[in-house]
């Protein structure tokens, strides 16, 4: 997976977030303040512009520019959290020009650690960690088992989707939804939902690449 692949992932993410903007905002209206879709769409729109205007010769450079741009355009909690996730992943990838599955798994693990530390959130708190953590675990297991790229990314997406879905029954312990107490139960966490969409975009771009190859 080279820089072009990572640019395609982020571009696909921007398109998907744009399409699902109202869905994410509706989730946020139920237990937050009705801006998650609009904020992420604005942020990834800015990222698309930044990627078009700057040289990003490595996967790490693509993700670093993505993270920096999200931090400077999204606001709220999701700006620093997603921004940090992409920056940590970028740092993990270093100067590699072609990242294999193990490097991707390590990068997503680094992203998860960054989000956990900054957001002080654990699994079960009804946050993006509930989608990201099981996805990272599933990818690591697939890599250990010697799974193909397609199978490994399918496992990543399945775990992220299941993790996001599982937040519906959780009571929020972090972020704005925690103010609702028990009333947060019954609603999917918008951050977990957007995390699942971002990882799905990664899988979809890889699948398309495969058919081209």
């Amino acid at each position, binding site marked *: 997976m080279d820089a072009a692949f990572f640019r395609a992932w982020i571009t696909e993410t921007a398109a998907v977030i744009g399409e699902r903007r109202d869905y994410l*905002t509706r989730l946020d*209206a*139920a*237990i*937050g*303040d*009705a*801006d998650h879709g*609009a*904020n992420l769409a*604005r942020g990834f729109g800015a990222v698309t512009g930044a990627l078009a205007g700057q040289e990003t010769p490595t996967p790490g450079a693509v993700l670093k520019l993505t993270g920096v741009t999200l*931090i*400077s*355009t*999204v*606001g*709220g*909690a*999701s*700006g*620093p*959290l997603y921004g940090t996730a992409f920056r940590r992943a970028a740092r993990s990838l270093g100067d590699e020009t072609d990242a294999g599955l193990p490097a991707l798994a390590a990068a997503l693990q680094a992203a998860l650690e960054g989000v956990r530390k*900054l*957001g002080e959130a654990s699994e079960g708190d009804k946050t993006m960690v509930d989608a990201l953590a099981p996805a990272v675990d599933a990818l690591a297991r697939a890599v250990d088992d010697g799974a193909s790229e397609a199978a490994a990314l399918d496992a990543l997406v399945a775990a992220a989707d299941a993790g996001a879905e599982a937040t519906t029954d959780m009571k929020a*312990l*972090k*972020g*704005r939804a*925690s*103010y*609702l*107490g028990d*009333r947060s139960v019954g609603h999917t966490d918008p951050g977990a939902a957007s995390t699942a969409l971002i990882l799905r975009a990664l899988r979809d771009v890889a699948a398309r690449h495969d058919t081209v190859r």
Partner: protein
Amino acid sequence: MKKLINAPETVVADALAGLAAAHPDLVSVDTANKVVTRAGGAVAGKVGLVSGGGSGHEPLHGGYVGYGMLDAACAGEVFTSPVPGQVHAATKAVSGGAGVLHIIKNYTGDVLNFRMAAEDAADDGIETAEVVVNDDVAVQDSLYTAGRRGVGATVFVEKIAGALAERGAPLGEVARVAREVNERSRSFGVALTSCTVPAAGQPTFDLADDEIELGIGIHGEPGRTRAPLAPAREIVETALDAIAADQPLAGDLLVMVNGMGGTPLMDLYGAFGAVSASIARRGARIARNLVGNYITSLEMQGFSVTVCQLTDELTQLWDAPVQTAGLRWGR
């Protein structure tokens, strides 16, 4: 829902341009960064006060920039905290060499973005301190929430810390007084309607005609419980009971009855009358008060009550001159 705007995308920038046009004697606006600073810029030797947060709470925060209060305010998107670059730009703009106090409302996003900016400011050699305002008694302060929300006490903190900074007090002292005001303040909010974020286009939650939402914050987020509509004096009693359960209503108090944006002043004065009578019955005294729209949630109907237990020092600082778009006296 109808709104007097040009487009959802420009609502914040348009409001800032209007603020600058209305008060050129008080503020200037950095339109690129969406930062409101005092006309005249940094005051040498004075601690700078920077606050900010999501837009939609006007006059908070831009309306409190000026003599005796804030040096700068960063305007985020509607109900969305500003980004670190904005806070960093504001901090640099108001740094007069005596350090800068960041006044942050306790929301995860606000705290994260201000702390990232504080690190950037430290790289520039600017010393910062922070006060995190968390006065909302509707939220349990426990391991199981993100902590209490910062609401009405933010106005008190900005006014009182601003007065002390104006006297030339050092950063540590200004931060101490800011934290003391926060610790002595409690708030409770009630909504009669939801509000509509311009970019969302739909009300954030639905309330029936005969229902109210108790324990709301300032972002149109649902509260903790829903109750049938009741006479104002009963709603006020519920709010004051919640506050009194957390901090006794005793001694000299600074009390704000604040409109959420869509409540007639007539109703707010009616509510203040009930607050005044109830506090007298409870054996405390309202020494100072504010009645009006000071920290709002767009066009929401509803109100909040904020109570601060005054000391002689805090009363003197409250009475000190202030000249901003949102608060003006003594000058």
